[in-house]
Structures are given as structure tokens and as C-alpha cells.
């Protein structure tokens, strides 16, 4: 292994890592919020809206991210939508993630016993308050793990942004790989950085889960 490689490409790799983290955090949090909104609309909205949301979920979830990004970035200009790589990357990230998040939250809704919501309605709590105070905290019990899963999956989907020249981590490691004709080192670097993100995400997921399952722990 050639250590001087890391010295030479260190700054570029770090900046790539920064871009990856930016796209990942903004994109996945955006997707999380959009997904939650979709799940709520699906649950409480009128029937036609539900069909619409389901169609959206099926289409976006059913097609590869690369192709969505491709259509947005390369197809967009033909319809007058000229986005920069990072803009396109983040926008497509939000869109791509939202149906997965929506489905995870939908499963969370199913896990709340009906009686608890009835009790909340009986004392006159508003639907919004019921959602955020009664449903959401308990919904997180079964969904924190899948949410963590998906955040982790999204860390790796950031790699696809390289095809539209977002200077993210994979893009920079490929520069290193192709300029130096090495392959083990770039993969190692890549894995290390992803692993850092994954460890961070798991740690946070664990914290959240501990918090939301507090009431289930027994003395």
C-alpha cells in the first residue's frame, strides 16, 4: 500500500467526503420530511389523493435512483430545467428517498393499537396533537430500525451522484484510482468513509431507539 497516495489525494478525498455528507444529510432529511407528509396524507387524505400517493410511491420506489437522476439531470434541460449537479443530486435524493420513508411510516401507523387513539379522541385531543404526541412517539418504536437502515442505504446511494459529476466521495476516489492505477487503496478509503457515516448513523439510531422504547423496559 502506498501511503503517500493518501497524502497526495487527502484534501480532495476530504472535500469529496464533505460533499457526500452535505448531499446525504440535506437529501435524506428532506426525504424523511416529505415521506412523513406523504404517509400522513395517505392515512388521513381523501381517496383520490391516496391513489395518487400510492402511484407516486410505486413509480419512484420501483425505478433505480440512477435513472431518476439521469432523467432529471440530462432530460431536464430539454424541458428548460437546467440544474447544477449538486442541485440535481439533492433534489433527486429527496424525491428518491421519500416513498421509502413514506412506507416505513405507514407501517408505523399500523402498529398503534386503535384503542389509544380512541382514548385520545375521547378526551378531545386534536388530530394534530394525537399525531405528534400519541402516534409519532410510539410509531418510532418499530420504525427507528428501518429508518436507520434506510439512512445507511442512502449513504451509499450518494455514490451514484458521481455520474453527474457531483464531486462527492466516489468521484474523488475514482480520480485517485484512475490517475494512480490502484484499486485496493481507493476501495479501502471509500469503505472507511462510508463506514464512518454508517457507524454514526447506527449510533444515533440506537440513541433514538433507547429513548422511544423507554416505557417498554422493565425493572
Amino acid at each position, binding site marked *: 500500500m502506498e501511503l503517500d497516495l493518501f497524502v497526495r489525494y487527502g484534501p480532495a478525498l476530504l472535500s469529496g467526503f464533505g460533499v457526500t455528507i452535505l448531499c446525504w444529510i440535506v437529501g435524506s432529511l428532506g426525504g424523511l420530511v416529505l415521506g412523513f407528509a406523504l404517509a400522513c396524507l395517505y392515512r388521513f387524505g381523501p381517496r383520490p389523493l391516496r391513489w395518487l400517493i400510492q402511484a407516486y410511491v410505486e413509480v419512484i420506489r420501483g425505478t433505480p435512483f440512477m435513472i431518476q437522476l439521469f432523467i432529471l439531470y440530462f432530460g431536464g434541460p430539454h424541458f428548460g430545467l437546467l440544474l447544477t449537479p449538486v442541485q440535481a443530486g439533492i433534489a433527486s435524493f429527496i424525491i428518491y428517498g421519500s416513498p421509502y420513508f413514506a412506507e416505513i411510516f405507514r407501517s408505523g401507523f399500523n402498529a398503534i393499537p386503535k384503542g389509544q387513539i380512541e382514548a385520545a379522541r375521547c378526551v378531545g385531543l386534536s388530530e394534530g396533537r394525537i399525531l405528534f404526541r400519541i402516534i409519532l412517539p410510539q410509531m418510532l418504536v418499530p420504525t427507528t430500525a*428501518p429508518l436507520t437502515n434506510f439512512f445507511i442505504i442512502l449513504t451509499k446511494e450518494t455514490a451514484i451522484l458521481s455520474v453527474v459529476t457531483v464531486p462527492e466521495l466516489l468521484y474523488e476516489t475514482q480520480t485517485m484510482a484512475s490517475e494512480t492505477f490502484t484499486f485496493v487503496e481507493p476501495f479501502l478509503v471509500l469503505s472507511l468513509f462510508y463506514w464512518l457515516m454508517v457507524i454514526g448513523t447506527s449510533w444515533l439510531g440506537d440513541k433514538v431507539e433507547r429513548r422511544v422504547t423507554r416505557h417498554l423496559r422493565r425493572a
Partner: protein
Amino acid sequence: MNFSFDVIWHNLPYMLAAARWTLLISVGGMAISLVWGVFLCAARISRGPFLSRIAALYISFFRGVPLLVQLLIFYYMLPHVGLDLPAVAAAILAVGMCSAAYTAEILRGALQTIPRGQTEAALALGIPTLSLWRRILVPQAIRIGLPSLTNELILLVKVSSLASVVGIGELTRISQNITGETYRPLEIYVAAAAIYFLINVILSALGRLAENRLLVG
């Protein structure tokens, strides 16, 4: 931009043939993911500190390392230690074992919503652990986790495209090849997306069907 359906039409047979690999790897991977995922989940929440730590480590590794690297390890590194798997087997195994880590976590999350009393009732009756899991816990965990499990299986279908790194001409790979020759990426990728969509929509429909069946009681 002139969108050419001819190009799609001409290349569709090759893409469909490639999709068969995608399907094979996906279905094989799913089987491993679901079965192995249940065991992993059981190990993860078991009281034995050893088992649960091993499972946690497994999950951390398979979620942490990019699947691409896992595949390269399975196919290119294992021969160095004398384990030479055929490409398809390596792909199915890698995809399934990786996905199992996610499946296990989904199930673990879902299991936490099953009131403890239900397990206690089973214990009090003397129901063996295996039956407890098979008849009481897993069905309910799957019921609650189904949308997330469907998510995971759909992701698995998509991620099967990485099998190209071990030389399998699955759908994404073949689409790229065709693009390289026709210089019509938009057409070919849209067609590929449509095929993925078809597979995934069927999967999703099955998921919803199962959900409606299980959402009783």
C-alpha cells in the same frame, strides 16, 4: 431531443434476457435475506451476550461496508483463501447476506411492538421457542414490518445490478453496454427503468396483498 422508440424496441429482447439474471439474483437473494434475517434477528435479541454480540457485529459489518466491496471480497478475495464460488452463487450469497442484516433490523424493530404479555402467555403454556417464533412472533413482526420489508426487497432488486462486477450481464450492465454502442442513454435507461418498475410493482403488490391478509385482529 428525438426520443427513439426504435432503439428500445430493437434492444428490448437483450434487455429482457438480462433481466432474467436480475430476477434470479433477486429472488435468490430474497430467500436468503428473509430466512437468514429471522435468525440474525433472533440472535441479536437473544439473552446470550455472545450470540447477540456476534449478530450485532455482523449487522454492523454488512450494513457498513459497501455491497460492491462485499461482492469483490466474495468473488475476488475468497479465491485467495481457497474458496472459489461461481459468479452467480457469489452474487446471490453476497446480496442475500447483506440484505439479511437490514431485514433483521426491520424485524427487531417490529418485534418491539408486540406486547410482552403475548410472549409470557406462550411461555406459561410451555410453547417451545421455535414455535413461539414461528407462530406468534414472526407472523406479527412481519405484519408490522411488511412495508419496510417490501422496501428492502425492492432495494435488493435494484442492488442486484452490482452483480455486474463479477461479470454477470444483468439488466443495468447490459443497458450500459447498449448505451455505449447506440449513444442513446435516455431511451435505454428509460426502458431499463420500466423493466425494474415492472418487477418492483409486482413485488409491491404482493407485499400489499400479504399486508391485507395479515392485517386482521
